[in-house]
């Protein structure tokens, strides 16, 4: 038995050994060992980087939070370098969530419509071209969206905003109170820009989900005498529900952290307001972009503390998306 290879050490098979013993040895080939450690290192680097970011954020945020004399979670102004230092994420949190959720609500039906059109309506060549252009939307740099939103879209939204004010003004969201003509550097415009920016991710994930609908399900509906829309309702949408939900949440996560476009469009104001078509608003990311240059030591720490909050929110949102996907898989 002594010549049997042991678990730890690989021995070179000798000629006179019966062949059966080759399969009982746990021989680790050098290539496997190298690849294993390379993969392990790569995996570990991700964790180390994540941990380093978290540690850095906490380390820099804590002193500023100690200096803060206002309630960090609810206070709506941002004067970290004043004496006494007062700042809070009330407005940032409110406008970040508001614009992102609104963007998701605007983008979702359009994205699902595009995905359905591409997978079930368009002729094959048209569908490829359209899919390509939708994906191209994701390649446009966000500063370009910002400039476009600020210089092109905002001036052209006046009519829509006045229409909504006139007919839906009884809903606070659409009520425009100032007497001047709206120039739309508002959370509403920011939401529309964000909606366009997250359209590609929601649409391309939905498209993949709709493509995976089993052919038998589609044919089952058609053979029952379903029209195309009825087929989509009975076979495609129920199958794709979880996938589309997680696509929407991923889009939301992307909207939460978007910086440049939002910074350019919003005319910054730290006052929480339901009137989304009025100028104003500020998000976590736009606040950091605006204030970082002029921030003192406490100011920098305060911005980092707000960055930490955004980090946690985005993490939670992405985690939720993963959870939805996993529950779909196990069902």
């Amino acid at each position: 038995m002594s010549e049997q290879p042991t678990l730890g050490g690989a021995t070179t098979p000798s000629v006179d050994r019966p062949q059966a013993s080759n399969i009982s040895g746990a021989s680790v080939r050098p290539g496997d060992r190298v690849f294993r450690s390379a993969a392990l290192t790569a995996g570990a680097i991700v964790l180390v980087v994540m941990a380093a970011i978290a540690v850095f954020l906490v380390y820099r945020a804590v002193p500023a939070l100690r200096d803060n004399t206002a309630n960090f979670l609810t206070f709506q102004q941002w004067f970290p370098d004043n004496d006494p230092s007062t700042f809070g994420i009330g407005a940032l949190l409110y406008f970040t969530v508001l614009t992102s959720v609104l963007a998701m609500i605007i983008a979702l039906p359009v994205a699902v419509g595009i995905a359905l059109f591409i997978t079930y309506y368009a002729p094959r060549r048209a569908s490829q071209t359209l899919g390509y252009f939708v994906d191209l939307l994701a390649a446009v740099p966000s500063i370009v969206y910002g400039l476009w939103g600020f210089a092109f879209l905002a001036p052209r939204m006046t009519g829509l905003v006045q229409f909504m004010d006139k007919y839906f003004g009884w809903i606070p969201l659409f009520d425009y109170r100032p007497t001047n003509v709206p120039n739309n550097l508002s959370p509403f415009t920011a939401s529309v820009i964000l909606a366009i920016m997250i359209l590609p991710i929601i649409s391309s994930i939905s498209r993949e989900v709709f493509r995976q609908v089993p052919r038998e399900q589609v044919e089952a509906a058609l053979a029952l005498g379903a029209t195309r829309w009825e087929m989509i309702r009975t076979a495609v949408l129920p199958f794709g529900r979880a996938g589309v939900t997680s696509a929407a949440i991923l889009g939301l996560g992307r909207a939460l952290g978007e910086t440049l476009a939002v910074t350019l469009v919003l005319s910054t104001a730290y006052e929480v307001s339901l009137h989304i078509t009025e100028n104003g608003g500020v998000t976590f990311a736009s606040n950091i972009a605006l204030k970082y240059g002029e921030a003192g030591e406490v100011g920098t720490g305060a911005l980092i503390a707000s960055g930490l909050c955004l980090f946690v929110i985005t993490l939670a949102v992405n985690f939720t998306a993963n959870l939805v996907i996993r529950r779909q898989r196990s069902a």
Partner: protein
Amino acid sequence: MAKSIDVSGVDIFYGSFKAVEDVSMTIEPRSVTAFIGPSGCGKSTVLRTLNRMHEVIPGARVEGKVLLDGEDIYGSQVDPVNVRRTIGMVFQKPNPFPTMSIYDNVVAGLKLAGRTRKAQTDEVVERSLRGANLWEEVKDRLAKPGSSLSGGQQQRLCIARAIAVSPQVLLMDEPCSALDPISTLAIEDLISELKERYTIVIVTHNMQQAARVSDRTGFFNLNGVGQPGRLIEMDDTQKIFSNPSNKRTEDYITGRFG
């Protein structure tokens, strides 16, 4: 209720490929017709042209005439959706809608047709499930998802779903090929009952099954790979399996090839 089908001079294409050539046949109401033949001979393709499901595949098209009680289902005024509501279909792989309950699966076709008064649907669900010999097994769990049933039960659920809309004709594309022998027997018994009320066309790979359930049998074959399939012979099942007029049919059913 049951209607006859008259097929004359039908050619079937996938894009530029001619898959089936020059099929003509007559299918009597309230009878079971079986299509047999080797793989790739076009028997499923012919079946799918009878309710215009063939054209669902991109590039697929049909030439020739298919008359349902004298009315051409490929006429320019005819909506394929209405054809499929009149001619039901059961597929090879049981395909109940996985997110729907057993009850909702049965009424899915009714909902599409817009006939969904509750009292009425309850009655249709019971009648259809009884018709598919499934009622006793599922009557206490109609709210459970259709995917919770066994394969054979799922296939009978699909049959119940197909007959719930009271079709004129029922097409079955190898309905037992994914099932065990006991479930197969249940489906075959069901076919014999259903033919009292429906015109049934069934594609099968199993020649014993064709011999057991059908009144008429059509044998399809092709001359070689890449050649279109043809209807070689169609006759009473008894004659096909005892004394076929075509040599190739005899070779196939006696197991000399295929």
